Structure formats: structure tokens, C-alpha cells
């Protein structure tokens, strides 16, 4: 793992005319880490990647690779390799020529290049396919060729711009595992750009969630999901039921908010809001659909909601139950399919309960738009 080189963004701002694409980004990526930038399209994550790869210079701040300021170094002078969203394989070159293009640029002889290509083809399990054209390969194979091509130059940092987005679901899931394995094997730093939270959470050591040019939270996948730093992160990553209200009381790690429609609800205060949340502040409580349970005891409490079943979706491993709470508040609940007798038939009145530690309270803020 010592091969990896760290990447640091220091107060990076990137502007296009009046438009601010990235605002004061401070990100520290450790060597050998699988790091993802996660955000909706247009949030500036690809812009950051282009600043790291050298295709554009930040308007302010510094991009450091291995502790060295990269200002003035073009993409061909940086120890980075980029895998494009559409892969950008050269259609008229054979697979092996594609893979070793960086060596060709360095003036390496044909025999040596061919040998290196065969090694890499073996690594990506495409032995003997070197003389094909990219168009003769399947989507997943092209993907692997693009990875091999990027790794051929032995970069210190591999940059990946949503490379899996064009693949179908099964292949995408397979490639996630494979990418992670390749990263562990070569031990270099991977910086991965995606709008797919599943990709970010399954592969990454750390994730930065971005919103409109701002990095909202940098943390490992667990914290991003279980302890979001802002309402945006809470609503963008995974699904959440949002309850708006005002802080009524604070008791250690927990707070009670007085919601407009659902009465008083208790939940854990998010780490980022600890100490800054005061009684009377507008706040939001986030409750994951899978944190909801059907209560066996129907007495009222601050971690209970009553609701009526509207309809149900069967997804295979889970049921999604859509409910209508007090005054038309929509609530979604997910139940794991364990072959149980379903109690969520239409119009049934239910009492839901949740573990207050599994719900989070944050100061009110902007949500991810659906």
C-alpha cells in the first residue's frame, strides 16, 4: 500500500466566467486510498477531477500530488491517468496498442510493449485478445481494457470519471468488486467520480459528497449513511423520510423536535450538529425507510408514528410500504422479505416505531432535489 501517493486540494476554487463550479474545496486524499466524489450531475465533481488530471487549472488554491504543487503541469506531465466516462478507447488501434499507448509515447520498442500488453491482458483476464479491435469486445471487456490502458503507464493516481455508468446492472455490480480488487492489488490511489451512491459506498475507503460546488461531507461510507453532516447528504445518499420542525428539548446525544404534522419525535443529534443545535432552532429529522418497524404495542411515544397504508411495492428482497401519516404526511417504510405474514394491507392503520439512535436530527437546510 506504500505505492500510493496522496492528493490534496487546498482551498480550490474553479470558476467559469461568473459561474462558480467548485467553491473552496479542501480535500485530503491519502496515498493508496479508494476515494470517491459523490454528487448529483452538475455538482462540480467532474470539474475537480479535471483539475487533478491537469486539463484545467484551479482559479484559486492548489492541487498537490505527493506533496508537490501541480500548478503549470499539463495532463501529460502529471503522475495521473484518467479513465473517461465513455472510456475513449482508440477505435482504430488494436487492443494491445490501446493498452500500451503510453509506452509508445515514451518510445518503448514494439517487442517490449507487446510483452507488457500481454502481462496486463492476463491481469484483466483477457489473455489472447490483444489483436482484436475495441469494437469486437463486450462492454465489460472494454471497461477492463480502459483500466489496463490507464494502469500501463504505472500512474501514482488513477482517476475514474463514472466509468461504470454505461454498463447494465449486473455487470456494474461485478465491475465494482473487480475495480476494488484491482485497486488493492496495484495499491495506488484511486479517485472515483460517481452519482451512484451504491458505487461510492461499496468501493470507497472515503467519500466526499458534493452539492453545487461545495464539499458537504468527507467521511467513510458508514458515517455518510448513518451520520450525515447536512440535510443534503441525508437526502441524497439513500432514502430518508424527512420531518421538519423545531427543537423542543435536548437531552445529551438526543433531541426532541416538535414537528408540524407528526407531533413530537425523538432522535439522535448528528455529530456535525452537536453543540450547535439550540432549543427553538428549525430542524429536520431523517428517518430511513428500513429503520421503521411495525410496533406490536400501540401506546403513544416519541419514537412512534401512526399511519395508514396507501400502497405497497414488492422489490424482491424488500417490501416498500407507502403510508399516510397525520395530516397527509407521506412516510415510506421498507420491510425485509423474510416470508412473514404481511400486516400492511391497504387502509390498515399501523403504528410505526423506530430506534431513536437510527434517526438523525440536523439543523434545517437544503435537501437534494428529487
Amino acid at each position, binding site marked *: 500500500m506504500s505505492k500510493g501517493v496522496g492528493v490534496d486540494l487546498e482551498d480550490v476554487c474553479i470558476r467559469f466566467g461568473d459561474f462558480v463550479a467548485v467553491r473552496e474545496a479542501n480535500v485530503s486524499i491519502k496515498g493508496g486510498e479508494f476515494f470517491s466524489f459523490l454528487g448529483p450531475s452538475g455538482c462540480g465533481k467532474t470539474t475537480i477531477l479535471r483539475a487533478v488530471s491537469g*486539463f484545467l487549472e484551479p482559479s484559486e488554491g492548489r492541487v498537490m500530488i505527493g506533496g508537490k504543487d501541480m500548478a503549470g503541469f499539463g*495532463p*501529460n506531465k502529471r503522475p495521473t491517468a*484518467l479513465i*473517461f466516462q465513455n472510456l475513449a478507447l*482508440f477505435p482504430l488501434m488494436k487492443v494491445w496498442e490501446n493498452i500500451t*499507448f503510453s509506452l509508445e509515447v515514451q518510445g518503448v520498442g514494439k517487442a517490449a510493449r507487446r510483452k507488457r500488453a500481454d502481462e496486463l491482458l492476463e491481469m484483466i483476464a483477457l489473455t489472447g485478445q490483444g489483436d482484436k479491435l475495441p469494437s469486437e469486445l463486450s462492454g465489460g471487456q472494454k471497461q477492463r481494457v480502459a483500466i489496463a*490502458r490507464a494502469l500501463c503507464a504505472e500512474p501514482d493516481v488513477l482517476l475514474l470519471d463514472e466509468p461504470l455508468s454505461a454498463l447494465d446492472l449486473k455487470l456494474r455490480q461485478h465491475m465494482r468488486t473487480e475495480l476494488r480488487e484491482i485497486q488493492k492489488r496495484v495499491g495506488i490511489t484511486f479517485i472515483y467520480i460517481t452519482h451512484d451512491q451504491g458505487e461510492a459506498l461499496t468501493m470507497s475507503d472515503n467519500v466526499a459528497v458534493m452539492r453545487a460546488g461545495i464539499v458537504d461531507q468527507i467521511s467513510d461510507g458508514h458515517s455518510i449513511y448513518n451520520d450525515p453532516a447536512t440535510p443534503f447528504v441525508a437526502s441524497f445518499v439513500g432514502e430518508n423520510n424527512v420531518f421538519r420542525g423545531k427543537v423542543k428539548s435536548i437531552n445529551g446525544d438526543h433531541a426532541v423536535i416538535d414537528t408540524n404534522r407528526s407531533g413530537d419525535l425523538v432522535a439522535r443529534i448528528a455529530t456535525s450538529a452537536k453543540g450547535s443545535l439550540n432549543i427553538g432552532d428549525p430542524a429536520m429529522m431523517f428517518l430511513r425507510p428500513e429503520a421503521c418497524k411495525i410496533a406490536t404495542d400501540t401506546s403513544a411515544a416519541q419514537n412512534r408514528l401512526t399511519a395508514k397504508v396507501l400502497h405497497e411495492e414488492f422489490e424482491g428482497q424488500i417490501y416498500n410500504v407507502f403510508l399516510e401519516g397525520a395530516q397527509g404526511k407521506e412516510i415510506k417504510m421498507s420491510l425485509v422479505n423474510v416470508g412473514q405474514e404481511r400486516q400492511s394491507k391497504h387502509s390498515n392503520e399501523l403504528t410505526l416505531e423506530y430506534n431513536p439512535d437510527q434517526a438523525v436530527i440536523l439543523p434545517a437546510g437544503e435537501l437534494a432535489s428529487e
Partner: protein
Amino acid sequence: MNIANFFRNYFEKNGIGLGTFLLVAVVFWVVVLIILPQLSMLDFSFRHHLPPPEMGGPKDVYTLEHYEYLILGAPGADTSYNVVDLGVFGRTLMAAVFVTLLNLVICYPIAYYLAQTKGGGGYTRILVLLLIIPYWINEILRAFAFRIIFGDSGLINETLLVFGLIDNPVDFIRANVALYAGLGYAYILLMIFPIYNVIESLDRNQIEAARDMGASWTRIHWRVVIPYAKPGISSGCTMVFMLTAGALAAPQILGGPSSLWFTQIIYQWFNQGGNWPRGAAFAIVLLVTCVIIVLSMMRIFKVRMGDIGK
């Protein structure tokens, strides 16, 4: 899929009215405008040069005399080969190749720039306009304009004299500079647009990927852009070569006193000489030679016919 079926489907798809019109138009274009004139020229080229009353008479039989004339010259001439005509023929083809290459060198960067900065705003559009507007002017007028610019007291000589770079006017006309410039300029759009079309569809990421892997601009063009643009380059070169070899107005107006273009000889046989069969034979030789050159170039550079139509 037999022919009756094909026509039934064709008329079902296009309707009787439109279908008939399309069919007639295409057949008229191919047969009347392309095949018949060429066949009649081919026929002419194998006949004796006879006064009109004898046409169709007993003397009107097929002969190779005009082709023999091009190669061997007039019977009883001093030399054993027709040095003058063959020399002009060779020089014309060489000059056409030269003009084509010159055009390619000039047009490739322009086409690349236009294609890669599309949507890049006003400059691109102005550049395209600057390229197109001169073509609203008649070809002969443009040739005369070149003659004036390159003349003894033309813009270029005057400028060079004013700056003291030369003491006496340079005879650009005699040196054929004006001719090559005029020919090169005449078909510039036919070179630019096919290349532009192909490069426009090149994924920009491929250029960036190559750059990311450390490739210099020369290598990016050599390994990525030019191979991709090959169909456009070959179709541009084909058109420019064919039209340059067959140009008449520019050599007439811009050619130096000693330079003769093969088309001018053909023109002379048709018009001044009134010897249509000989003119036809010369024209057929030019056409066939050009086609052979183009096809062999395509084979050498591994371009398939189908790629050119793209």
C-alpha cells in the same frame, strides 16, 4: 427477396407518385447525365475523324488511331514518341498531385480547427463565412483576380517592392506560382468539408486520453486524429485531384506562356482542331489514368470505397 417484391415494398413505402418521381429522377441522372455522355465519348474516341457527309458511311469504322497518336505522335514525325503531348500529360498529373498535397497541408489544420471549436462562438462562423463567400463569385472572375494579384504591378509585387524585399517585380505567372495558387484555392472547400465532417464526429475524449497518456500534439494527430480522418482526407484528395487534373479555366488564365495543361490540349482538339474523336480519346485517357491513380492510392492507404461515402 426478388425484384418484384423489392418494387412492391418500394412503392408501398414511398407511394406511387413520389416513388415514380424518385425512380425517374435517379434513372435520368445516372443514365442520361452520367452513363450516356461517357459512352458516347468512348464511342467517339474509337472513330476516324471524318467530315460529316462520310459519317455513318463505309469509312466510319472503329480505329485506335487517336490513342496511337497520343503515344506515338503523328505518322512520320521526328521522334518515335509523342513527346510533347505525353510530356504535358505527365506534367499535368504531377502538378495535380502537387496541388492536392498542398491543399491537404493547408486544409487539414483549418478543418481540424473548425471541427474542434464548433460551438466555440463567433470566430468559427466568421471563418466559415470567409471560406464560403468567395465561392459566390464566378470561377473565371476569381482566376482573373489572382492574375491581377500576382501580376507585375499586382498587390504582392507592389508590397514586396515597397518593403524593399525585391528590386524588380517577380514574374509569378511565368513561374506558375499564380497557377498553383489559383488551382489550390479553387477547390479548397472540397478538401476542408470532408475532413471537417469526419473530425467533427471524433470524440474529444480520445484526444484528451492521448494527451493524458503523455502524447505530443504531433503524435496525437499521427496516431489518433489522422487515422480517424482518413476517409475524409481521401475523399477530399480524390475530389481535388480529379478536379485539378481536369481544370481548364485556371490554366487558361493563370498558366505561364510555356505551361500547357492537358485539358487545354483536349480543348484545342475539340474546338480549334474540330477533331472530336481525338479530343475524346485524350479525355478518356486522362479520365482512366486519374481513376487508376485514385484507386491505387486508396489501396495503398487502405481506404475502402464504402468509407468515402461516410
